[in-house]
């Protein structure tokens, strides 16, 4: 046997140029974008419900309603996206929200209560934010420095934060926890009389932290650490400090969530946040993040928050009986991610 002549040579492939197939290249590129498929599911749901109940679902009334009710979860989920990308998890969000709410409510109660002015509102808001930030940073420190698995740290934090909130209040939601000004201006107020302030705050938060994740060093380090913490450490990234920051961020956003909660519900709802963590984690995973870290996006999370929200609203509007709703939501969640899986199969990583 001796040297053959080249069997084949295709310069187009070498330069990576698109090749003529029936699907136009821009569409194939688009289908490669992680969020497109999940977004497709969301659109499908909206279309389905609109077709089924054209007179009630998705009138302008409903869209802002859904968005308002999802606003607080969205804020928490944005923080959770960072934590999950960094291969962590935070079960404590709901309790941290409660603790922040309680501490800020205590201040309000002693400084004017329901009739408190903007000065009190400002201080109590700062208290809520700082509480969340400090609690989150503490958890981050335990994860990063003490190397305790995040599940345990934040589960412990979940119990401890709730316990402290209950000790402070005696377990009852205190009265006069929120200034009426705050409730009217932020809780039920609307920007230009159109968009509820809660939605504005949530989307602004989403936008800012979405951009930070996608375009800044902070975001890049978040992906790098989630992808390979040891590699990140070896290239000189201060992994521990970054972890503390990420957990502090989700704490801060829980604090922000507590302010939004107080403004909207007018009470601390100590007993009403036991399953926030699962709701929020589900949204992030629905949005394409991997619990093993390194993958995920804020845009995906945004969609992931809205899929269950639209779904449960739609099912109620369609008059589906409650127990069947549980079944239907379970099935749709799995189906939604199953669709997404086709995309991933397309570009499998061996």
């Amino acid at each position, binding site marked *: *046997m*001796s*040297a*053959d*002549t*080249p*069997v*084949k*040579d*295709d*310069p187009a*492939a*070498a*330069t*990576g*140029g*698109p*090749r003529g197939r029936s699907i136009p*290249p821009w569409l*194939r590129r688009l289908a*490669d974008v992680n969020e497109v498929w999940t977004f497709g599911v969301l659109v499908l749901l909206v279309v389905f419900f609109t077709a089924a109940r054209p007179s009630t679902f998705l009138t302008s009334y409903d869209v802002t309603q859904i968005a308002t009710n999802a606003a607080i979860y969205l804020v928490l989920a944005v923080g959770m996206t960072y934590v999950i990308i960094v291969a962590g998890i935070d079960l404590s969000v709901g309790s941290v929200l409660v603790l922040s709410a309680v501490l800020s409510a205590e201040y309000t109660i002693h400084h004017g209560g329901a009739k408190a002015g903007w000065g009190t509102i400002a201080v109590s808001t700062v208290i809520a934010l700082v509480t969340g930030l400090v609690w989150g940073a503490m958890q981050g420190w335990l994860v990063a420095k003490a190397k305790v698995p995040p599940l345990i740290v934040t589960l412990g934090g979940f119990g401890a934060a709730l316990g402290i909130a209950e000790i402070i209040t005696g377990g009852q939601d205190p009265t006069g926890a929120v200034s009426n000004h705050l409730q009217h201006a932020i809780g039920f107020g609307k920007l230009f009389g159109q968009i509820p302030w809660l939605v504005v705050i949530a989307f602004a938060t989403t936008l800012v932290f979405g951009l930070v994740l996608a375009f800044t060093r902070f975001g890049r380090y978040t992906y790098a650490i989630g992808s390979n913490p040891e590699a990140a450490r070896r290239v000189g990234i201060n992994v521990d400090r970054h972890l503390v920051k990420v957990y502090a961020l989700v704490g801060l956003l829980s604090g922000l969530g507590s302010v939004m909660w107080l403004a909207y519900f007018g009470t601390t709802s100590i007993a009403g946040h036991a399953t926030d963590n699962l709701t929020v984690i589900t949204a992030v995973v629905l949005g394409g993040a991997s619990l093993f870290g390194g993958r995920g996006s804020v845009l995906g999370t945004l969609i992931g928050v809205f899929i269950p929200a639209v779904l449960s609203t739609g099912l109620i509007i369609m008059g589906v009986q409650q127990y069947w709703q549980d079944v239907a939501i379970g099935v749709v969640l799995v189906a939604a991610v199953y669709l997404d899986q086709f995309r991933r199969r397309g*570009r*499998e990583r*061996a």
Partner: protein
Amino acid sequence: MTDPLLEARKVTKRYGHVHALQGADFTAYPGEVVALIGDNGAGKSTLVKTLSGTIRPDEGEVLVDGKPVQLGSPLDARKYGIETVYQDLALAQDLDAAANLHLGRELYRGGLLGRLGVLDRAAMRRSAVAAFRELGVDLRDVGVPVAALSGGQKQSVAVARAVVFANRIIFMDEPTAALGVVQRGRVLDTIKRVRDRGIAVVLISHNMPEVLSVADRVEVLRLGSRVARLTAADTTVEELVGAMTGALDAAGKEGAA
């Protein structure tokens, strides 16, 4: 020469708009060492994975003993007697060397226990120690997870696994890259010994002297397709490098990329 043991025809594999394989051909005969060489990114590992049932090609045909076969999973490939040393080693990092060596081919205790699936750890450890000694590897502590082993030790585990169970065809994707001088020599000896048992050995390597010293035949891959088939005895390193980089046919042919 005898009939090919394994043949790949016009195998294509795309990842997004990267064409890892574009109509690649490949042939391996029993009882020979065939080297598969090519530049980085030429598609060698992709071809190996295709022929080991690890990934499915988009197009193309694979024949074993002249008959077209479907290699849907590594299990299928193993049925045809195909063993592989993967470039990324494919070790379970949390298991120790002996467990990795026997993964998928555990040894069982005798009697009832064995039928219940109870493993014979001592036997597996003994056979592992023997296999590693044959490859000249000193593992110091055979009980530690392979994650803790040195680069060369890890590679030895992967090589030993394939060699011990070699049957009809063995693919070795850069099996000596991380090995020390002595261990490399042992592996090359082993390759020859295995070949002499009538097994087809497919060796991928970037070390041209090594290729020429051990291979009977060389197939060259470039940009996802086979560009040359050479007899090792008739070739020089320069010729091989020329075929891999396309310098040769650029001289001989117009317009090649």
